């Protein structure tokens, strides 16, 4: 299949990698919240492509940011400029782009699609506040991705680190929210681990405002044919499919 050249690769801290790829078409049509399926090699190990959210797009290139967690991401992290990868995308739906005001809530690597979304809001002049929380100091290397949004950002770390709010991203959001009533037409956008979404489903505030969440699931294809990426619907029976119906869903839609 068609190969996409790697144009740049940068390690961020020990376990994060930013990968920039050539791709005019993907750069042109991608919207915040969409993802690509990317294959690390021509071999069968790993066999399937991996889903990665789109971090940013430039003229004729686009960037991904991922955490090394297993064999697939490890191989991706070893790419060099000039190597090529096979990519399908952009895939999935994206976030809705026209709230009157936005709250962005990211946990850990969930930062990726929200950075893309925040750039859009910044360009479009839509006011937003970006909450980002990490588990430990190591993940704070990613803070650089928020630099350009800095006055609108609230960072927190579960481990005590000087200069950062201590606790989860949801505790820092909750205290902020008490003094910052959202105007009508506001939306919340969230991406992070399942545990974060589960807590959000229990916090009453999030029932009163539209909350768009970007989910992860094990994927077979990424484009809707295998039905592998099923997540239970909250109401009624049956499943939604993260790659085709998502990855962005309304918080109350899905059983987490």
């Amino acid at each position, binding site marked *: *299949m068609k190969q996409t050249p790697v144009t740049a690769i940068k390690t961020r801290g020990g376990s994060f990698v930013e990968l920039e790829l050539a791709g005019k078409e993907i750069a042109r049509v991608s919207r915040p919240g969409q993802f690509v399926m990317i*294959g690390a090699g021509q071999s*069968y*190990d*790993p*066999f*399937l*492509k991996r889903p990665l959210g789109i971090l940013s797009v430039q003229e004729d290139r686009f960037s991904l940011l991922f955490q090394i967690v297993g064999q697939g991401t490890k191989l991706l992290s070893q790419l060099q400029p000039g190597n090529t990868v*096979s990519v*399908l995308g952009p895939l999935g739906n994206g976030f809705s782009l026209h709230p009157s005001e936005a709250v962005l809530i990211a946990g850990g690597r969930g930062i990726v699609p929200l950075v893309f979304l925040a750039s859009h809001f910044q360009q479009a002049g839509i006011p937003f506040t970006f909450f980002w929380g990490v588990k430990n100091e190591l993940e704070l290397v990613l803070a650089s991705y928020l630099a350009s949004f800095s006055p609108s950002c609230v960072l927190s770390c579960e481990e005590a680190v000087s200069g950062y709010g201590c606790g989860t991203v949801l505790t820092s959001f909750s205290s902020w929210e008490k003094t910052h009533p959202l105007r009508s037409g506001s939306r919340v956008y969230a991406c992070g681990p399942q545990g974060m979404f589960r807590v959000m489903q229990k916090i009453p505030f999030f029932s009163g405002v539209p909350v768009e969440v970007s989910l992860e*699931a*094990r*994927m*077979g*294809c990424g*484009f*809707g*044919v*295998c*039905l*592998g*990426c*099923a*997540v*239970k619907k909250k109401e009624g*029976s*049956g*499943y939604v499919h993260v790659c*085709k119906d998502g990855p962005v869903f309304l918080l109350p839609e899905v059983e987490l």
Partner: protein
Amino acid sequence: MNLETRLGPLVLQNPVILASGTCGYGREMVPFLDLDRVGAITLKGLSVMPWEGNPPPRIHETAAGVMNSIGLENKGFHRFVQDDLSWLETVHTRVIANVWGRTEEEYIGIARLMDRLERIDAVEVNVSCPNVEKGGESFATNCRVLHQLIGAIRRVVQKTLLVKIGPTVAELEKTLKFMEREGVDGLSVTNTFPALAVDSERQCLVFERKVAGLSGPAIKPLALKLVYDVRHLTHLPIIGMGGIMKTEDALEFLLIGASAIAVGTANLVDPAVALEIVPGIESYLVAHGMNRLDDLIGKVR
């Protein structure tokens, strides 16, 4: 170059088919390949009523393979007609409907419904589902039940009738002879292989339903063996499949006597790969001085 091939009454412009469950209802593939250039597409398995399928996880990777426990999730016949049929009428490729039921009656129901749709060229019966009436054992593993099922379906299907078998078919030889007598038009060989995976970190089986189906390159040598065995037990045309990733794999199945081949799991990784295999087969024929696909089929005994 003549790449045409036949499955009983059904003529395909070339032998490369997209396998059921790996190309949706066709439309999902449009961004990646021109459906009119493959021999046929096989729709995701459909039943009369919608079926929600199995809980996640549904997909697990193994060495050169994929295990799936989709559980035959599908939108049901009526939503298929609503959502997809008129779109399918805009393409010219052959369309094979893959069907299943939990009871014999459900099987006959969906087969009859599909047979009436003009756009459908053939009905492929997936016999590897659990028979809910008979204790959940797969239809394929009980010889008597299987024969009755196939006979009953043949009576309601006028179109090309294909039966899709896997490694667990009961009394293979007897069943193949039975299918010949009943007038089955062709066989799809093979479905996935029953397999197991254990999550050693969480100390549980990976899949809630325990067993899941293994597909992909890992099973190719086993699928070739099954096709070869079937080829020597019956003259029915065979669609060979199991781990086909590239032209050379397809050639192996054709050489041992498959009249067509299907690309399954490979579509998940590279949804355009079928359109590399079609010209790949053509080049092979040219390089080996053959001028029709038929010269290749069954050349290795």
